[in-house]
């Protein structure tokens, strides 16, 4: 096994092109578990922690360009107000030690259906910036990034450079169900965004389908009802039953399985509850902001 430690982004992309068998390692909070338990023996480890570009974030053309290697701890400290949904998700990840190392790039690389950043990224319409030495940069909407259970759209010579996320026009929420508060992989999770500027609704379902996914019909339903009721302008109270119906439609978008963390039925139930609450909390916040 080799240990590759590029110090620039160009070197990292060249190394990945030359060694498609190299496994990138950022915070190592997924990779090192697999190494320690002999579940994975790649030809090489490609350490990305020396590439300083990956650890930076900046506002670029009105969007946050979040380097793939920015840790959850820094998202919480530095971007809590700018990326509220993602920061809420970040606060629920693992423990302080895990948040000090773990990155959104690593969450996307692992592409676990239970990864906590995914519902927030889906709800916020994030875009994944992917690069290779041969073909340069391509942008993939996050909904197209997840291609199967723990599979993603990366080619063997590609790395994730950054995640592009527009700062929110309206309130965002993130809810997660687990057996306790700390150190839990989600039994189910839900991300929600009110895009008040576009009068649309963003959703993201975690841990309740083979991949993270949106509840597209539920989002269109809620946005349409808000439109029909003139509520986007009036910021009036949600009509009786609307949030409940939204929760049902979110539930219908999921396709969970029974596993050690919970049953499919429990996941469906919790999703409908989380979606109802998230929509209500976000709408109430929107009304208060008037």
């Amino acid at each position, binding site marked *: *096994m*080799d*240990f590759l*430690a590029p110090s620039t982004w160009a070197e990292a992309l060249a190394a990945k092109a030359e060694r498609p068998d190299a496994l990138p*390692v950022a*915070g*190592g*909070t997924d*990779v*090192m*578990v697999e*190494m*320690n*338990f002999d579940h994975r*023996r790649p030809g*090489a*480890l490609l*350490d990305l*922690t020396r590439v300083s570009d990956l650890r930076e974030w900046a506002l670029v053309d009105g969007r946050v360009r979040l380097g793939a290697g920015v840790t959850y*701890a820094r998202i919480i400290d530095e971007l809590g107000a700018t990326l509220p949904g993602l920061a809420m998700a970040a606060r629920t990840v*693992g*423990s*302080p*030690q*895990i948040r*000090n*190392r773990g990155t959104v790039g690593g969450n996307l690389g692992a592409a676990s259906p239970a990864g906590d950043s995914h519902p927030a990224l889906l709800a916020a319409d994030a875009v994944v910036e992917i690069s290779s030495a041969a073909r340069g940069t391509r942008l993939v909407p996050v909904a197209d990034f997840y291609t199967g259970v723990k599979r993603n759209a990366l080619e063997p010579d590609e790395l994730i450079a950054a995640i592009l996320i527009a700062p929110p026009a309206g309130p965002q929420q993130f809810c997660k169900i687990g057996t306790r*508060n*700390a*150190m839990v992989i989600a039994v189910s999770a839900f991300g929600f965004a009110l895009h008040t500027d576009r009068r649309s609704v963003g959703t993201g379902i975690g841990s309740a389908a083979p991949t993270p996914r949106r509840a597209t019909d539920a989002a269109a339903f809620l946005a349409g009802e808000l439109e029909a009721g003139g509520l986007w302008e009036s910021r009036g109270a949600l009509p009786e039953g609307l949030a409940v119906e939204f929760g049902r439609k979110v539930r219908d978008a999921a396709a969970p399985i029974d596993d050690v963390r919970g049953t499919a039925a429990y996941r469906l139930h919790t999703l409908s509850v989380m979606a109802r609450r998230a929509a209500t909390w976000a709408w109430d916040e929107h009304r208060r902001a008037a």
Partner: protein
Amino acid sequence: MRIELTVNGARHEADDVWEGESLLYALRERLGLPGSKNACEQGECGSCTVYLDGVPVCSCLVAAGQAQGREVTTVEGLADDDGLDPVQRAFVECGAVQCGFCTPGFLVSTHDLLARNPSPSDPEIREALAGNLCRCTGYEKILDAVRMAAQS
């Protein structure tokens, strides 16, 4: 491969480091620093917590090669010539140590908490120690120790 790093203020080198091995393994088995404990090797228990460039991390989840050229502080580095760190003294005085396996990790996490927040509330203490498990004490004495260390 060979790695060079600073541990507890001193330069260290290790040869024949396997490319996939953890910083925890390198500290314990190659550098003669067995203070950091290996209990789960999957980031759950926190008994391997060390400072890496000033930030508490699970050393079992850091590849040894990622620590090349970096600064590590382990539990062995908390005490100085004047004796134990106030956090260590408080753990002893409060009876927060039983089998002691979790203690090195709790000490580093508590040390970091008090450096950032000298008078934490109870919920802040619980949050800061959420990545450290103890199967002996029931945590009450550990909370007492953190409160005592915060006052000293």
